[in-house]
């Protein structure tokens, strides 16, 4: 343990000397030291700290960075022109990108992945540093002189839709290579707004079946894509031919279309099903009971054909029809089942 020795210097000032006697743990010593310090300072003692406080750091002179070893990114100003640094598509260069980017495998959980310096992982991945907003702005500014102004009458979307239902999308590619041709430029997409064309109930369902996933059923638009022919014009012609064929094919009705079975129906047709017979029979029977006829079960069925005496345009049968076809079309849900229940209750006069 450290011993303390009080030395009297003058009349009022006392000094405590801390002298290390044995190999004492540093921390322990510090504690003892600070305790003595606290005790004594209250009583106007000053402590001579022979072993210096470790936590007070000495001033250290730092070397300024060597300008010759700095990369371009380090020297960049915040308001420099990025388009001049990265004018075109290029693989990643760590020296020119002033961003703290990291990429790669983390060897330990607490370690960070490698920084950008000499990082091959960053070179492998594609970057979009040549497509920043200022780039695009300058590109647009450069092309602007080749463009004509968009007609102001067609700025309204609906007018444009009504007058130009056909939308043709093609793209051109500019590259600094040996060939000015790009194989992707032959692709043609044609968007058609089908609400302009004339369709009846049958042809709508037929074109839906024929077009398949090319058609957006809700918006009634058709999207035809083609890259099968070598030239753009041929592809466009093919798309238009497809459109024509689809339209006229959907207008025709073949004989075998009437032979569709229930599983093929797009919409449930209640009039063609057994359900209608069943309900009409039930309705006929209910009417008989209500009018007070006392007929046997067997005779009532054979005597009169129910479809003659019961009119299927009656209110409760119509409501049943709509509710049941709704149940079949939209599937089960709380709403459809409730509507169905109400219609049955109506049928049973409850």
């Amino acid at each position, binding site marked *: 343990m450290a011993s303390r020795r009080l030395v009297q210097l003058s009349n009022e000032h006392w000094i405590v000397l801390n002298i290390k006697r044995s190999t004492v743990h540093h921390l322990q010593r510090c504690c003892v030291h600070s305790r003595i310090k606290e005790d004594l300072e209250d009583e106007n003692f000053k402590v001579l700290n022979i072993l210096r406080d470790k936590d007070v750091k000495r001033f250290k002179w730092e070397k300024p960075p060597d300008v010759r070893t700095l990369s371009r990114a380090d020297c960049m100003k915040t308001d420099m022109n990025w388009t001049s640094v990265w004018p075109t598509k290029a693989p990643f260069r760590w020296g020119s990108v002033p961003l703290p980017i990291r990429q790669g495998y983390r060897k330990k959980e607490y370690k960070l992945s490698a920084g950008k310096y000499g990082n091959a992982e960053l070179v492998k991945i594609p970057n979009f540093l040549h497509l920043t907003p200022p780039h695009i702005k300058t590109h647009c500014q450069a092309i602007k002189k080749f463009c004509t102004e968009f007609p102001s009458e067609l700025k309204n979307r609906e007018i444009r839709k009504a007058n130009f239902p056909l939308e043709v999308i093609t793209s051109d590619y500019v590259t600094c290579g040996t060939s000015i041709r790009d194989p992707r430029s032959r692709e043609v997409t044609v968007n058609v707004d089908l609400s302009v064309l004339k369709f009846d109930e049958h042809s709508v369902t037929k074109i839906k079946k024929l077009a398949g996933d090319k058609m957006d059923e809700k918006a009634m638009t058709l999207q035809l894509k083609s890259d099968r022919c070598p030239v753009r014009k041929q592809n466009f012609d093919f798309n238009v031919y497809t459109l024509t064929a689809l339209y006229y094919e959907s207008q025709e009705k073949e004989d075998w279309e009437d032979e569709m079975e229930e599983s093929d129906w797009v919409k449930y047709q209640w009039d063609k*099903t*057994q*359900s209608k017979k*069943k*309900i009409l029979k*039930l309705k006929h*029977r*209910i009417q008989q*009971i209500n009018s007070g006829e006392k007929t046997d*079960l067997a005779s009532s069925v054979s005597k009169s054909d129910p479809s003659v005496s019961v009119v299927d345009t009656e209110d409760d049968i119509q409501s*049943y029809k709509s509710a*049941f076809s709704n*149940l079949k079309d939209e*599937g*089960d*849900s*709380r709403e459809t*089942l*409730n509507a*169905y*229940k109400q219609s*049955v*209750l109506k*049928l*049973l*006069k*409850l």
Partner: protein
Amino acid sequence: MASVIYRIVSKQPSGYCINSSLLRSSSSLKCWQRCVTTFRTEISDPSEHSFDHEGQFYTIPKKDVQKIFMLNWMSPHEKNMNKMFQEFSILIRRPALEVMDILKRLNYNYPLTRFLLYGEMNAGKKFTMTHIMHYCRSQNWVLLTVPWANEWNCKRLDVSFNHHKESLFDLPVHSKILLEDFLLKNMSLIKEFTTSTTYEFSEHEASEQGIPLTDLISFGITRMKFANDVVGALLKELQILANNDKIKLLVTIRGINSFWRKTGQKKEKVQEIHAQQLTLVNQFMELLQSDTKNAVAMCSTESWVNDVTDRKSYLPTELMGKEGVDFLEPFLPIEVPKYGNAELQSVMDYYIDRRWIQAPEAKTLDGRAQIKFLSGHNPYQLYRVCVPL
């Protein structure tokens, strides 16, 4: 001294505590208090239940329980619950009241009306049916019950070829169970009736015209070979009786969606039997499709019928398929939803009353909110959550 007392207490059987508390609660003062509490009604006659009683418990009298529900209807688990609670109480819920309301207003001259109960698993379809069955029994209806239709598909007891139609398969043991169940439930109601025609079961054995209906049934029970044919005869007789205004008939089929599924039954070379090939299923489907007067069919679709992997759907079309809906229509779909907030509170009150919930923390508002959240408003889950409490 203290240790001695402790030992005596610990030696008491565990049931004693509950027993004594129930005994105390049935003293006259407590009885009066029970009437006052909001979660019970003392009206045990379901025909007097109205929408005012929604969310309250009523107790089915013990003689009815023994007669109607004890044998085949209740599962061992539910029997155990009754033993624990020392009574058979059910919550009066909206779907049951709705059906009973329709039954009260229905014109019974109309052809057979079909109800279809649907709802999520463990939502309480069975107890809704129990309530309605109890109502019909109180009105002296004849109950024809299929407690679990999927049993015909899954429980492999015995299969035999049908004598009359080659493509069909008989289930004699299941038919016997059905007949026994029917006889036990309706013994007093069908005593006087006699058969209207002769039924020939084989070359040597036939039942003559004019014998009592109970004899026909007991013939089916004793001669199990013909049990399935007897079921067919019984259904026909019941239809004739109902058409002549002699009885009112309630047909209860739990898990009707098993009628349109493959079964696990096998017979000799026929390895896969569809449920439509079973004679019992055909007989019941004939009954459901007939336009019998004075008859009501109450069916339920159950997700339990499906494989373990797909039991999420509970809506009728998903479970029965299109054929099922086409066969059953026009039906009255009745949804059995999960508990609402008021129902949940009254069930928890009941559990506290029956000492199913004993922990004091669970009885507080906070505890109740936690139980409500954990159960997800599902009746069976609510029961399960309260097990350790």
